[in-house]
């Protein structure tokens, strides 16, 4: 990995288009590409779930075919209501990924604004915001999410809200650190002298420098959000039945573990693969965007 990054630096860049060049550099990292591939496939499955799933995940109940083993008609077998596990896992991808994606988008957006304000203006605002961040980050994430869900009640909207409350401080902390490291640089001073407005300096000159760590963290936290949603649903606090999410399919399968292990095995593989893909992608991005790290 190290040698590869050195090659990239030494080679003179003949750029056809900046995007293509980025992609070419990125594609030298095998694990990053593997991660990207896994995630792309899973995203496509999530988006085209209605076209891929052979059965309706909720309504196709079949009492003559309960807890059936995997077969050609039901690739992953059926559950306690005779519903097709394959279809439920496919639709589960849609639910789980949507929730995690929106969660990360919200936490990152609010966290970026908080971090920028805190880092750039400093003083009392910084003090107050950072005490709040410190306080929120003192709770173990999953436990905090469970407590919030206990108050809010289980629904998809509330999972997103709870997880966003848990993850926002982590983005605020990251961006604040990044702003602090850049704000003292000389070129920022010269822009100030030339009369650049604060907003302009923040969004045009500081934020772009924080994009790399932000992207890496968003990828990592996407994986955390997938795991957290699955855990909440597995505990019966997340996505309400009968809608499928990977976590609540596992929850269903728990009591039939001995006789019908397929109900638990397949959604677990789906979660594991998605998280693996995101971790690979995150590692690849880190190698590519931050060559100083090993």
């Amino acid at each position, binding site marked *: 990995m190290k040698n590869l990054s050195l090659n990239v630096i030494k080679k003179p860049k003949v750029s056809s288009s900046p995007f293509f060049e980025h992609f070419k550099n990125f594609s030298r990292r095998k694990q990053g590409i593997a991660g990207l591939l896994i995630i792309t496939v899973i995203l496509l499955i999530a988006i085209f779930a209605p076209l891929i799933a052979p059965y309706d995940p909720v309504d196709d109940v079949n009492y003559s075919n309960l807890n059936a083993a995997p077969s050609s008609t039901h690739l992953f077998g059926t559950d306690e209501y005779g519903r097709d596990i394959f279809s439920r896992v496919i639709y589960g991808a849609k639910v789980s990924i949507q929730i995690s994606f929106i969660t990360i988008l919200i936490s990152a957006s609010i966290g970026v604004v908080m971090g920028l304000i805190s880092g750039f203006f400093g003083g009392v605002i910084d003090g107050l915001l950072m005490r709040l961040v410190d306080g*929120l980050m003192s*709770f173990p994430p999953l436990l905090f999410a469970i*407590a919030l869900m206990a108050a809010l009640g289980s629904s998809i909207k509330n999972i997103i809200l709870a997880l966003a409350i848990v993850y926002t401080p982590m983005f605020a902390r990251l961006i604040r650190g990044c702003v602090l490291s850049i704000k003292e640089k000389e070129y920022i001073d010269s822009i100030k002298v030339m009369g650049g407005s604060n907003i302009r300096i923040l969004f045009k000159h500081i934020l772009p420098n924080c994009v790399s760590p932000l992207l890496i963290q968003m990828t990592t936290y996407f994986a955390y959000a997938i795991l957290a949603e699955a*855990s909440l649903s597995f505990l019966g606090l997340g996505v309400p039945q009968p809608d499928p999410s990977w976590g609540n399919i596992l929850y269903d399968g728990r009591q039939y*573990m001995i006789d019908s292990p397929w109900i638990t095995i397949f959604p677990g593989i789906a979660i594991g693969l998605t998280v*693996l893909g995101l971790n690979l992608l995150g590692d690849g991005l880190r190698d590519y965007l931050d060559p100083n790290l090993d």
Partner: protein
Amino acid sequence: MSSFLIKRLLALIPVLLTVSAVVFMIIHFIPGDPAAAMLGSQANEEQLAQMREKMGLNEPLFIQYTLWLSNLLQGDLGSSLVSDQTVLSLIANRLPVTLNLIIYSMAISILIAIPLGVISAVKHNTGFDYASMVIALIGISIPNFWAALLLIMVFALNLGMFPATGYISISESLILNIKHLTLPAFSLGFIQAGIITRMTRSSMLDVLRQDYIRTVKAKGASPFTLVFRHALKNAMIPIVTIIGINFGLLLGGTVVVESIFSINGIGQLMIQSVLNRDYPVIQGIILVIAAIYVFITLFVDILYTYFDPKIKYSKG
């Protein structure tokens, strides 16, 4: 050192105050009337009024908080709405069980991860390195509850090597204690082991590249002395940090794992309280856990001075 400690302890005050405010606010996150949420839909107006009175919900928010906080400072976390036991005694009964599980799990993951990470770094870019990195990556990608279900399927239901559920305390029987906690500890430990292995490897790689390591090599130190006496100690800071952070992850993950293995720890108590809408207990648990977490972070900071005496705390 002592002035550093005092400063760090003083810095905890605002953090703990924020923590308490967040915990207090949780019941105000309940949409609508918290009293109605706790009593359910069958409650009549009189019961609701009683509950509001009991919880002090009629006072202005700030007064409610100061009252709650002053009780808290006297060690009064309130009582359970379900069992009438005090929250503190409920937590005190369950906490040792959870700590038992977490410490066992942490021990397993450290014993696996640090040697794996060190060998990977020493044998950088070899088959061993790649293999252990793949294993670590799989470790951090498997959800702990799924690992728990698979472990139960294989080692409890099929092979019958370990019990699938339950808990026996150390004072009753150490062997049975370990037997009961092995599967839960492993299911919690996979992720930790993965994270610690990766951190150990990258931290060791950084240290092994430094000049002083070359000097030690030139002096003819054995590989063992080189790695364990000179490199590992300096590589420990990021490793200790990640272990400290992971303690928090374990405290969260234990909720799911305890519920699968029917272990009567804090995690189970949390789930029962959530199902019973027993908000004082929920608040008590996350408050106590957050406080523990905050003090672990402090402990990690203090450990730094041991691993790197160069870190001067007099200014910090």
